[in-house]
C-alpha cells in the first residue's frame, strides 16, 4: 500500500511538472502572451472573456495558479477557430484515439507474445536468424512510412481499404456509439491498426523472446523438468508465466507511449484522433487546443505509467507480498 501511494505521488508529481513546463513554454514563447491568445478572429466580448478566464493581466505566478485551477475543473478555454470549449473538442476525438491505440496494442501484443515465445523455442534455427533482424527492422521503420507503403499498396493499388478518415461521407448515425460499432468504422480502422500493430509488435516480441530464453535457463524450469511435468506445462505454466511479467508492464506503458506516437499515424490516415488534433492545432496556432491536446496525451501517459506500476505489483508476488523472513 505504501508502495502504491509512493508510485501515485511520483506519477502525479511528474504530471504536475509536465503541466508546469507546458505553462511556461506557452507563456515564455517569443512574442507576448496577449498576442498569442488574442486573435482578430475573436470579437471584443470574447477577447474580454478570454482575458478574464486566463487572467492575463495578472502576474505570472497568479496566472499559473489560475491555470492549474482551471485545469482541475476540466476547463481549458475556447478554441480560437472552432469557438467551442477545448474540453468538448478533446472528448469528441478521444474515443477514436483510444480505440485505435488499444486495438493495435492488443493485436501487437497478442502476436508479439506468441511469436516471441515461439522464436525462443526455435532458437538457433535459421528462422530465428532471419526473424530477429527483420523484427528489428520493423522497429527501425518510421511508423508513418509503414503507413504510407500500406496505404499505397492496400488502399490505392488494391482498393481494399479506404484511404483515410473514420467514416465514409454521407453516412449518418444516431449517436457516436452506433458509429463506432458500425462496419464502416471498422473498415476505416483496419489499415491504421495494421500499421500501428506492425510497428508495435517488435517490442513485446523481442522482450518475450529474451525473457523466455532467460527463464528457460532458470533452475525452477529444470526442476519442473525433473519433476516430470509435461513440456506444455513447463513452457506455459512456468516459463511463459514468468517471462510475461515485464511484457504486461510494457503493455500498460505502451498505451501511454503510443498515444503520443499516434500523432503521425493519425495524420497519415486522417484519423480524427487527439494526435491529429494536436498537429492541426499547432500548425494553425490554435494554442488552447494544442495545449489541451498535449495535456490530454501527457495525462494518459502518466495514468498508464501508474497502471503499469500497479500491474507490476499485482503480478509479481515478490513485490506484492513483502518479505516475512
Amino acid at each position: 500500500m505504501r508502495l502504491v501511494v509512493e508510485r501515485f505521488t511520483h506519477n502525479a508529481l511528474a504530471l504536475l511538472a509536465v503541466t508546469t513546463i507546458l505553462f511556461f513554454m506557452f507563456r515564455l514563447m517569443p512574442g507576448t502572451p496577449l498576442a498569442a491568445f488574442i486573435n482578430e478572429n475573436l470579437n471584443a466580448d470574447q477577447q474580454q472573456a478570454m482575458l478574464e478566464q486566463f487572467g492575463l493581466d495578472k502576474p505570472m505566478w497568479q496566472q499559473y495558479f489560475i491555470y492549474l485551477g482551471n485545469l482541475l475543473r476540466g476547463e481549458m478555454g475556447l478554441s480560437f477557430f472552432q469557438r467551442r470549449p477545448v474540453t468538448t473538442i478533446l472528448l469528441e476525438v478521444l474515443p477514436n484515439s483510444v480505440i485505435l491505440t488499444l486495438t493495435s496494442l492488443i493485436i501487437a501484443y497478442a502476436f508479439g507474445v506468441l511469436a516471441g515465445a515461439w522464436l525462443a523455442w526455435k532458437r538457433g534455427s535459421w528462422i530465428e536468424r532471419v526473424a530477429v533482424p527483420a523484427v528489428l527492422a520493423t522497429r527501425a521503420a518510421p511508423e508513418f512510412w509503414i503507413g504510407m507503403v500500406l496505404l499505397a499498396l492496400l488502399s490505392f493499388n488494391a482498393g481494399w481499404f479506404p484511404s483515410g478518415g473514420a467514416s465514409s461521407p454521407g453516412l449518418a448515425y444516431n449517436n457516436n456509439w452506433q458509429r463506432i460499432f458500425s462496419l464502416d468504422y471498422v473498415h476505416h480502422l483496419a489499415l491504421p491498426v495494421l500499421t500501428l500493430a506492425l510497428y508495435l509488435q517488435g517490442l513485446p516480441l523481442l522482450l518475450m523472446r529474451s525473457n523466455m530464453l532467460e527463464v528457460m535457463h532458470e533452475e525452477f524450469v529444470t526442476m519442473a523438468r525433473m519433476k516430470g511435468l509435461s513440456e506444455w506445462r513447463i513452457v506455459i505454466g512456468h516459463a511463459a508465466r514468468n517471462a510475461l511479467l515485464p511484457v504486461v508492464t510494457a503493455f500498460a506503458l505502451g498505451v501511454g507511449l503510443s498515444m503520443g506516437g499516434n500523432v503521425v499515424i493519425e495524420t497519415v490516415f486522417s484519423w480524427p484522433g487527439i494526435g491529429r488534433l494536436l498537429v492541426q492545432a499547432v500548425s494553425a496556432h490554435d494554442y488552447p487546443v494544442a495545449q489541451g491536446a498535449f495535456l490530454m496525451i501527457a495525462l494518459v501517459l502518466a495514468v498508464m505509467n501508474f497502471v503499469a506500476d500497479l500491474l507490476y505489483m499485482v503480478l509479481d508476488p515478490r513485490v506484492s507480498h513483502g518479505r516475512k523472513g
Partner: protein
Amino acid sequence: MILEVDKLQIHYSTRSGVARAVDGASFVVPEGRIVGLVGESGCGKTTAVRAIMGVLAENGRQAGGRVVFKGQTMDEATTRRLRWRDIAYVPQSAMSSLDPVYTVGSQLVEVLTKRGTHSRASARARSAELFDLVGLSERRLADYPHQFSGGMRQRAAIAMALALEPSLLLADEPVTALDVIVQRQILDVLRSLQQRLHLSMVLVTHDISVVAYLCDEVVVMYAGQVVESGPVREVLARPRHPYTMGLRNAFPDLLSDALELVPIAGSPPDLSEPLSGCRFVPRCPFAQPACSIDSVVTGSDGHRSACRRDAEADTIRTAALDPRTWQRSSSFAMS
C-alpha cells in the same frame, strides 16, 4: 543395489571442444544407505546426478556407460517414467528452484496432482502432512518462496522431493548455501527422514565434513572420474588416494575444531584437454612418472582406490598429514 552407475560418460560440446565432464565414473548406491559424492567443484558430481535425472544442459549428452535403477537400465522413457515418483532431487538453492510467482503450496499441489494420483483436496492434505514432516507450519503453504528464510526454503524443497514417496533421493549440495547452524538442522532433517522412510540417498557435496556427518558410503570424484570409494569410516580414517587425503586436510570438521586447514594447491584440470593416466598428477605431491601413463583401480569391493601407489598408502598417508607436503608445487616430488 538400488542404483548402479557404470562407466558413465557425459560430454559437453563447448567452443573449445568436447569437455568430458564425467569420464567413466562408476559407483553404486546400496538400498537404504546414504552415499556421499564428494570432490571439488568442477569434478563432475553435479553433472553425474543431473544425468541420472535426465536434465543435462543442452550441450551435454550421455556418451557412454549406463545407469541402472532397481535392475532397470535407464533410457529416456524409463527416466521420464521414474522421475520424481521413484527418484527425486533436492537442489542446492531452493530459492532459484522454486517458481517465484506461485505459492510453495500450489507448487506442491502441482506435483502431487500432475505427477501423482492425488485429487486437489487430497493433495492439499498431503502438502500439509509433508510440511509437518520437514518441520514447517502448514500455514506457510500459502506463502511465496521469497517469503521463506534460506533454511525454510531448503525444508520446503525436501518436502517437495518427498511428495511422491520416492525410494531414491539425489541431494545436490543441499546445505552449501546455508550458515553452519542451519546446515546442521537440515542435515538432521535429512538423516531422520532417511531413517523413518527408509530412503536411499546420494548426497553431492564438496565438503568432506558433511560426508563425515551424514553418509554411510563415500565416492570421491576427481576430474570426472572416481578416485576412491568405500564406507565412510574406512575411507576417512584410512584414505588411500592422495586426493582424498588432501580433501580431508582442506575442510574443517563439522563437529570439532579441526587441525590446521591445508588447501590443495592448484585446481582441477581443463576437461576439454585430452588427459591420460591419473588426473591428479599435476597437483599430487606423491606422483611418479608412471602415474601419468595410466591409472589402475585396486582394492577389495569394500574400499577401492585408483592410486598407482596404493601399496604404499600407509606411508603416503603419514606424509600427507604434514602440511609442508602440500606446499611442494612440483610434481614427482617423492619419486
